[in-house]
């Protein structure tokens, strides 16, 4: 039936004497192939039918078309490597295999080193390792929430926008605009008076387009700015009376000024003076040369608030999902590397110190080389795991960008089960995945043989 089941009988004739364990540490209790067969049978039957036979079948199936009746040679493979969608998946899988294991291993190393002999390292390791116990589905849901676009629901953007706004405060009046019949016209994203104003005048700049409740806290009743000789004054206010009753363009009693608005006096295309409105919405340019000016409300007053990063958009989707993967697997790398660190013989470190090496040199020249085998195991394990990554991409990437985020394992499922219905192509993708893990398979077998001596 399969190689697994034929192996014992094929080997039976030329079998070594049962007492010679061929260098293995195991030994003979009671040589009996029938007894062995009894113990092995359930495992070998399952492995044969569900694992080994399918490997053979999938390889053969990959040379047939979707119906399974027509032999197409390497047709499925050439389709795979010319199809736009699969090429995206291949590119993404390559990014995953290079980036994810590197970041996770590096982070694991940093965590292992940082927590070494810290009193509460057990608690720290427990917290970081915990995501390993949770399904990719749940992790995916968790990160869909984290990556929500609106800073009001996604915590990633909430943090980023609040940091951003700390250093570059956002405008107070996004969306505010002049009354349609007011003496103000858009100038880029700013608004400027249509008719020229002269020093000694007081201008009225009525705005609408926002709720009175959203005005800054200090906003007071808007008042008419007093006209002063030599000064150009004016009022910027929210020309809207709740419940109606206000007259457009007039300062009605219930209407409030718009404080902290940046107003510019423009002459001949140049901004000659800048003023800021007070709580009642008034401003004044003093000491202006006689002449005519345009009064402009600067664009910065109306800029839309910073919305954060589009984590789940086509451009960032793969890095975002890798971020979630790092969150899940960092604990794994940390625990393995910490065990490796603990196993480093102290004498080697002491010898280097006696020779006058600094701690950093000891780490670089002694610890790291001794840790290299552990780092390799961690990296290879992660690389194999990442090749098969499916759930996380499937869950985090919203439907509209799933084709941008796709990886080979997801393609395999979509081609064969998720609507594609092409077992030929699906088998070809599986075989490519399989070929990619063969080096790891050989490495495992070699390592095992070496350990057996």
């Amino acid at each position, binding site marked *: 039936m399969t190689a697994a089941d034929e192996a014992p009988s094929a080997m039976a004739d030329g079998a070594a004497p049962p007492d010679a364990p061929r260098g293995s540490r195991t030994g003979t209790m009671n040589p009996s192939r029938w007894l062995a067969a009894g113990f092995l049978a359930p495992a070998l039957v399952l492995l044969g039918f569900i*694992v080994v036979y399918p490997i053979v079948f999938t390889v053969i199936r990959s040379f047939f078309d979707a119906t399974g009746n027509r032999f197409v040679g390497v047709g499925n493979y050439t389709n795979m490597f010319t199809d736009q969608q699969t090429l995206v998946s291949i590119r993404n899988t390559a990014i995953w295999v290079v980036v994810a294991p590197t970041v996770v291993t590096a982070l694991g190393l940093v965590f292992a080193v940082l927590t070494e002999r810290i009193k509460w390292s057990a608690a720290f390791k427990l917290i970081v390792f915990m995501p390993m116990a949770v399904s990719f589905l749940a992790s995916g849901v968790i990160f869909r929430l984290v990556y929500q676009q609106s800073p009001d629901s996604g915590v990633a953007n909430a943090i980023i926008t609040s940091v951003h706004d700390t250093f570059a405060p956002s405008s107070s009046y996004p969306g505010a605009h002049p009354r349609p019949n007011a003496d103000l016209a858009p100038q880029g994203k700013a608004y400027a008076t249509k008719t020229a104003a002269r020093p000694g005048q007081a201008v009225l700049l009525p705005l609408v387009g926002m709720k009175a409740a959203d005005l800054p806290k200090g906003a007071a009743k808007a008042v008419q700015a007093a006209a002063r000789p030599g000064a150009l004054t004016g009022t910027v206010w929210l020309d809207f009376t709740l419940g109606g009753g206000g007259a457009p363009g007039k300062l009605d009693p219930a209407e409030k000024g718009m404080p902290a608005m940046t107003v510019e006096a423009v002459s001949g295309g140049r901004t000659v003076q800048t003023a800021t409105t007070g709580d009642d919405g008034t401003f004044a340019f003093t000491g202006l040369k006689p002449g005519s000016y345009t009064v402009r409300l600067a664009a910065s007053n109306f800029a839309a608030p910073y919305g954060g990063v589009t984590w789940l958009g086509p451009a960032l989707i793969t890095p975002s999902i890798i971020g979630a993967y790092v969150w899940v697997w960092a604990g794994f790398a940390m625990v393995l590397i910490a065990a490796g660190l603990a196993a480093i013989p102290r004498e080697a470190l002491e010898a280097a110190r006696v020779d006058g090496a600094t701690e950093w040199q000891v780490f670089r020249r002694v610890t790291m080389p001794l840790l290299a085998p552990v780092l390799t195991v961690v990296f290879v394990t992660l690389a194999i795991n990442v*090749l098969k990554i499916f759930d996380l991409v499937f869950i985090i990437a919203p439907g509209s960008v799933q084709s941008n985020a796709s990886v080979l394992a997801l393609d395999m499922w979509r081609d064969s089960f998720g609507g594609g219905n092409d077992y030929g192509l699906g088998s070809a993708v599986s075989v490519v995945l399989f070929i990619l893990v063969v080096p790891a398979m050989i490495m495992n077998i070699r390592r095992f043989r070496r350990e057996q001596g």
Partner: protein
Amino acid sequence: MTTITETGRVAGAPRRGLAGRIVGRAGGGVLRVVLVLVALFWLMPTLGLFAASLRSQTDNSASGWWTLFTKPAQLTVSAYEGLLSGGWFVPSFWNTILITVPATLAVVIIGALAAYAFAWIEFPGRDWLFVLVVGLLVVPIQMGLIPVAKLYGALHIMGTIPGVVIFHVAFGLPFAVFMLRNFFVGIPRDLLEAARMDGGGEWTIFRRVILPLGMPAIASLGIFQFLWVWNDLLVALVFSDTDTQPMTKALQGQMRQFGTNIDIIAPGAFLSLIVPLIVFLAFQRYYVQGVMAGSVK
């Protein structure tokens, strides 16, 4: 809590850790602050899911889950009530159990039997056969999906719970056999000889000596496999039906309307992760050992 660090203790090592020695005394405080921040950063996403699951859909679409801490009045279990009375989630929870428990037990039992044969019964071709098992460790399950789907179709077990279980068992076996065999090999020969002197057959030795002494490894494997199967989505997507689907598949079906469905998805995801989390916290030593042994898979 102590187990993860147990390996981190080396007799006579300097009191300060590696990082502490590199950054010196002054950096120690900074280091501690950084670690606390990292720990908070790692906890926050899960905490967010839990908080979101305790708010109404209206609150969740209006503001972030963190406002729950400033406005505790938002706290409500209505999302859980809605989910549990919905009629689809509870059956999927049972399906998860009906899949996970047998798949775990079967892998442990079948794996232990084979591992014993590989470790302690000499038979022709033993080493070659075991190398094959080692080779199978890394085979992607994608290689099995299509042929087994066809096989199940012919056997009329496609879409049934036994079908899902059998697939999980078969693909869990290489690791189970590998891990248990390596552990069983280390059991002192004298103990097995003694049992034989008393007239015990292989079956008696397996039950009376191997199983009790192999318990640490069996527990590690059991926990590892339990979490693996509980958390699976891909196998369920292919081999289960709407009335046999586990929680992962049922919840995946809700993801399409993520924005308007948070009141279903958040409590559902939380309920699906709370069991693995409890199992992990209760048996973390065994799980960490299983994961470390699995660093070849």
